[in-house]
């Protein structure tokens, strides 16, 4: 990238404002307990319709990054994590606040976020670029196999049960089949409704599942505590603190890289794993749980690193490993961009803009992190009922704005109801979203590959990329099944043992 390109990107495109706005929105959304990064991003989706493609994806990706940091603010101040990943930060963050070190804790969280984000971005650039070289070798059969790999990996890794993950994935594929058939043009599952002819847009599923179902859940949750604005002035960590926290940050960065690249893991797993590892390797293990700075640095570095490294499988393979990257994938689809190997060939400029925007978001986190602390505390201190009412108003207004259609608002509400039922029955959202997003890709490429091979199903095994991807998908499913059976057996043995002891 030459200096002129960099200058143009900075001053003649809206990438910098998009990154700053995304980080600011992310921090505010992440700071509100119950509003996860994916919900914060989903609320923005309707507004990205009329935007320039690069700005839209930068806005959403920066929101993800900002929200992961924002979650630590209520975690430290009111012992309520703003995001799931910030739950690990509560342990030592709130303890530090009780010791009168809230500003220091917030500073450690912010600068660990900056370090995690920087490391994650470097890894993202280094690891996704080589994949562009194999892009041209992809055929319809390879794309079908890639879709199947995504569904099997997410179906088996997301959630608590393999069966439930796969049920959610199949339900997603069923939703994707609504509308006009990709080959014959026949209408399927439209029941005479002209609004369903073009199918159900992934954005409606995303907003319904994540945002509306959360609003429904919030109706029976108690209000959160109030934050004390006086104690919340961010402090730059002292040299002694830096010396103490850097090993924990290094652990967080490595864990964030591994977990970000692993579909189904995400920031929460990374935060807790890095917390445990930081404690294991620390010289002051006994301080963990009682206000250890390392106990904030490790999980915060890890979850912000994940916000960048989770883009590696999403951009290179089109497989979103976390709920937030699934929403980001929805944002790509709105712009008619299909993440996967061809993205680097067909839209290399957008990938470059995304990297640039993510770089800007790291700088923006420092500035916005300081500036937005008072508004965040003000927001957290508003009655929860007002915030939920305004979020509901934003959802219905934003969805209506997409195609000025009340039918779509109704669809979103219906998916909200479905999302609530899925939460109740513990069916994971991610496989369903992936099914909705990949359904068309899977079906159209499956059928195209068969047309090209005169109906020969062996074409999927003759193409080495397709055969390899299907093989990995099979291994994932078989591995999950074996793990499931192993757990059942272990459980049975433990139960038998305890019954014998009782007897």
């Amino acid at each position: 990238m030459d200096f002129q390109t960099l200058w143009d990107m900075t001053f003649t495109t809206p990438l910098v404002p998009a990154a700053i706005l995304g980080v600011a929105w992310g921090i505010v959304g992440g700071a509100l307990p119950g509003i996860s990064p994916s919900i914060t991003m989903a609320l923005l989706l309707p507004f990205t319709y009329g935007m320039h493609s690069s700005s839209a994806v930068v806005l959403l990706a920066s929101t993800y990054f900002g929200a992961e940091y924002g979650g630590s603010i209520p975690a430290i101040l009111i012992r309520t994590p703003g995001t799931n990943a910030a739950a690990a930060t509560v342990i030592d963050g709130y303890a530090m606040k009780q010791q009168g070190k809230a500003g220091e804790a917030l500073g450690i969280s912010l600068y660990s976020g900056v370090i995690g984000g920087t490391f994650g971005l470097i890894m993202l650039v280094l690891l996704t670029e080589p994949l562009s070289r194999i892009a041209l070798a992809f055929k319809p059969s390879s794309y079908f196999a890639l879709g199947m790999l995504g569904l099997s990996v997410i179906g088996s890794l997301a959630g608590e049960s393999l069966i439930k993950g796969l049920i959610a994935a199949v339900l997603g594929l069923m939703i994707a089949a609504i509308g006009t058939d990709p080959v014959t043009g026949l209408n399927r599952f439209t029941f005479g409704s002209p609004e369903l002819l073009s199918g159900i847009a992934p954005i409606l599923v995303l907003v319904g599942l994540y945002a509306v179902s959360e609003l429904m859940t919030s109706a029976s949750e108690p209000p959160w505590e109030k934050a004390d604005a006086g104690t919340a002035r961010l402090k730059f960590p002292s040299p002694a603190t830096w010396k103490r926290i850097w090993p924990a940050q290094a652990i967080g960065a490595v864990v964030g890289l591994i977990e970000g690249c692993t579909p189904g893991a995400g920031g929460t797993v990374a935060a807790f794993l890095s917390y445990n590892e930081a404690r294991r390797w620390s010289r002051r293990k006994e301080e963990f749980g009682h206000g250890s700075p390392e106990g904030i640095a490790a999980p915060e570095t890890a979850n912000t690193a994940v916000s960048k490294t989770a883009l590696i499988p999403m951009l290179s393979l089109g497989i979103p490993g976390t709920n937030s990257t699934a929403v980001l994938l929805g944002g790509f689809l709105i712009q008619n961009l299909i993440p996967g190997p061809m993205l680097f060939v067909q839209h290399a400029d957008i990938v470059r803009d995304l990297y640039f925007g993510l770089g800007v978001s790291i700088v923006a986190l420092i500035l916005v992190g300081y500036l937005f602390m008072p508004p965040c505390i003000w927001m957290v201190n508003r009655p929860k009922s007002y915030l939920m009412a305004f979020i509901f108003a934003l959802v219905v207004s934003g969805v209506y704005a997409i195609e000025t259609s009340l039918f779509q608002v109704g669809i979103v509400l219906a998916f909200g109801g479905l999302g609530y039922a899925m939460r109740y029955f513990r069916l994971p959202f991610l496989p369903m979203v992936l099914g909705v997003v990949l359904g068309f890709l899977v079906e159209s490429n499956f059928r195209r590959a068969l047309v090209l091979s005169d109906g020969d199903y062996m074409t999927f095994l003759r193409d080495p990329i397709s055969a390899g991807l299907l093989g990995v998908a099979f291994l994932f499913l078989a591995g999950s099944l074996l793990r499931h059976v192993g757990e059942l057996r272990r459980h049975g043995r433990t139960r038998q043992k305890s019954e014998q002891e009782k007897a």
Partner: protein
Amino acid sequence: MNRDIVCGCGTFVFAVAYYLTAAAIPESMLADAVGPQGLPEAYGITLAILSLLLVGSGLMKWRKEHADGADAPQAKSGRRDWEDARRAFGMLALGAGYVVILPWAGYVVSIALLIVAVAWYQERAFMRWLVPTAIAGALGFWVIFVEVLEIAEPAGLWPHFI
């Protein structure tokens, strides 16, 4: 009965209905070897099999819980779940109410009513600043969506009276 059994039964019924609807998709002269109904039928069958597996694993879990005598706490949590679901679907009903009144009452009034209704429903009490906040909020949303983003939000019946 545990959640897995209920969920499995529900998805099984849905899978059968989906399969029958897929099978009823008419044949096309342009159809390929798979046809427009090919994959949807496969989805229906797969979902039915997975649903039965879920029911099976739910029954095993239920038998184990039954043997451990965990019925009493389950009944208590069942009542709480029902109460939570009732409140959650109340929120959804408020959203549906917005969809119904929007074409008649217009955007500003509908959004103000939605804010009042949701805040009141969440708080379970009427707050002093609720109506002014809702009016200010509705005007704010009108500025953002109608004036700035130029979205043609319904004006309702008001223009007929003016």
